[in-house]
């Protein structure tokens, strides 16, 4: 029996949704083997990485806290990826959103008012959008590759934030630590679950995901995004503007990343510091793919990737595994997902040698 690979006549929809499940399962199995090879108790390792964070209320609240920014950014990126616009600089847009919104918080330091927080959110969104406008303009006007420009700008944004907190925005009473003043109360997001750090941002993230789903599936704009990505020639024929799609998707993903950045500094952090994200902007790329570029699918995908952060910390404390396990698991998961997706488009058949005629008869006409 020789395995034979055939292209499916049409995409296997069941496999399309099973593929992420398969990828997660393969990641856990490989994780087990990896823990074993590194000399840790593999059962303990897998338990503390993937299971025990889910067993406490605190763990679940932290899960929501970390899933929030991943979902927000992931929804924006998914819109772009659908239209073949590859914004991989969300990390930089997140940083600039935090700088813009955090700048408002520092400017209004000590000012009391219900309007402070909404103003900060607006600034966060605009900051992220303005930063995403650079690759959008260069792509739309000169056809410069947005992958490279958005990524280069991430390094620039990190340096910019560092310059501010080491320089003009440094807390005068902060013993020379590179950090801004702590934001005052009116500039801090309200906690939605007493006793935890879970703040309003997670609810916004869920609303954004639902809105994104409605946009993609129920509006003409969503239809245009999908056509531009899947069949550029047809889109051009139908008069859908590619330039408009570039601007639309980069502004959306930039604005959402900026909001996510503002939520980080106005939420769990409460001030500006040189490093405000453990790579949410990059992890959200995996979230987008794991969620099948579907805004609703991005909710569970965001929770799973949030688990990789919390599980990594938890396993570090409980089993002593290195912190870098999180990154390894995240990369592995995306590899397995991309590999599993092969089964969406192709099928593997076992076939007795010497009966090629039967197989040929079944082969799809291409």
């Amino acid at each position, binding site marked *: 029996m020789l395995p034979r690979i055939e292209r499916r006549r049409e995409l296997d929809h069941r496999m399309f949704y099973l593929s992420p499940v398969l990828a997660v399962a393969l990641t856990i199995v490989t994780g087990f083997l990896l823990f074993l090879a590194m000399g840790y108790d593999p059962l303990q390792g897998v338990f503390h990485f993937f299971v025990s964070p889910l067993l406490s209320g605190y763990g679940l609240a932290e899960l929501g806290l970390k899933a929030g920014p991943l979902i927000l950014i992931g929804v924006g990126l998914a819109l772009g990826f659908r239209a073949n616009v590859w914004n991989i600089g969300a990390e930089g847009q997140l940083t600039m959103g935090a700088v813009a919104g955090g700048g408002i918080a520092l400017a209004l330091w000590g000012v009391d008012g219900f309007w402070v927080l909404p103003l900060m959110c607006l600034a966060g969104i605009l900051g992220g959008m303005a930063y995403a406008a650079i690759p959008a303009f260069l792509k739309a006007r000169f056809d410069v590759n947005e992958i490279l420009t958005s990524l280069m700008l991430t390094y620039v944004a990190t340096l910019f934030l560092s310059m501010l907190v080491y320089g003009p925005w440094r807390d005068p009473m902060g013993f020379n630590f590179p950090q801004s003043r702590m934001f005052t109360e009116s500039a801090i997001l309200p906690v939605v679950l007493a006793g935890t750090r879970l703040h309003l941002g997670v609810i916004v993230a869920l609303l954004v995901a639902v809105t994104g789903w409605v946009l993609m599936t129920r509006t003409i704009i969503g239809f245009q995004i999908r056509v531009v990505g899947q069949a550029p020639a047809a889109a051009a024929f139908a008069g859908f503007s590619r330039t408009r799609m570039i601007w639309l998707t980069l502004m959306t993903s930039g604005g959402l990343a900026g909001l996510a950045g503002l939520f980080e500094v106005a939420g769990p952090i409460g001030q500006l510091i040189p490093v405000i994200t453990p790579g949410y902007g990059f992890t959200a790329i995996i979230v987008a793919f794991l969620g099948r570029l579907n805004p609703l699918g991005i909710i569970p995908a965001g929770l799973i990737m949030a688990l990789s952060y919390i599980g990594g910390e938890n396993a570090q404390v409980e089993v002593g595994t290195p912190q870098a396990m999180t990154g390894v698991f995240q*990369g592995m998961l995306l*590899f397995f997902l991309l590999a599993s997706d092969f089964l969406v488009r192709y099928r593997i058949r076992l076939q007795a040698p010497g009966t090629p005629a039967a197989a040929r008869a079944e082969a799809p006409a291409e």
Partner: protein
Amino acid sequence: MSSEFAFVLTLVTVISAATPLLLAALGELVTERSGVLNLGVEGMMLAGAVSGFAVTVSTGSVALGVLAAALAGMLMAFVFGVLTLSLMANQVATGLALTIFGIGLSSLIGAGFVGIPVTPLPKLHIPVISSLPVVGPLLFSHDALIYLSIALTVGVAWFLKRTRWGMVLRAVGESDESAHSIGYNVIAVRYLAVVFGGFASGLAGAFLSLSYTPMWIEHMTAGRGWIALALVVFSSWRPLRLLFGAYLFGGVTILQLYAQGAGIGVPAQIMSMLPYVATIIVLTVIAAGPWRARLDAPACLGKPFRPAT
């Protein structure tokens, strides 16, 4: 005499800063000429950097270290090849996965090697010639990887332009269907090109951790893999122009280091932005300028190919 000496010394550091860019970009150039876009350069470089460092520290042999780095890069590239060439995965997504995985894996392996000193790659010393003024330090006092990077550039230029297999590689990148129909194995050629890309990126990583800054630092490539990708566009997929581009960027890197050292009143962070901003400017000039260099991109770049059965 002393200013002349300082000038030569500056040029030597420029060569040093340019070499990892040149090696990584050269590998990617060959990969892209075969029609495959591998965005995982950063990840492959990191795999090379950490493997080279770890093996050198563990065995005491820097030669084994360089070998390990090359193998690590090739292994990473092979994984990319399996996913994109055999399993038809999206090349952009797989390249990003390779980078994310490379960053994670390298910090996992490197965790035990932070802050450990290593004997750097030895400078080749040729009696008499290396002691010549100006020419000696400028041309005859580098380590083996620097000479290798230049030899490899010339070799790749010759291979692509003058050899039969170089022509096959270009044919596969320009028109996979035609290359397939006249009997060439498109997938096999692309595998070889992708693995060569990993080999060169691995060496670039080894140069970083064993020569440029002989130590292991987490994510020590700091975006060089992405700058290398931009350099390939800058060179319009030509090896000798790539050499020029890499040395230009080496110059920018050193310029900002000197400016920081001179303390010209600009925050250090602004100076550190320079290589990244320069990359964006160069990409824009290339795309907008009268040369229309991007039209030289291999016609099948990034497109999947599966032979009809």
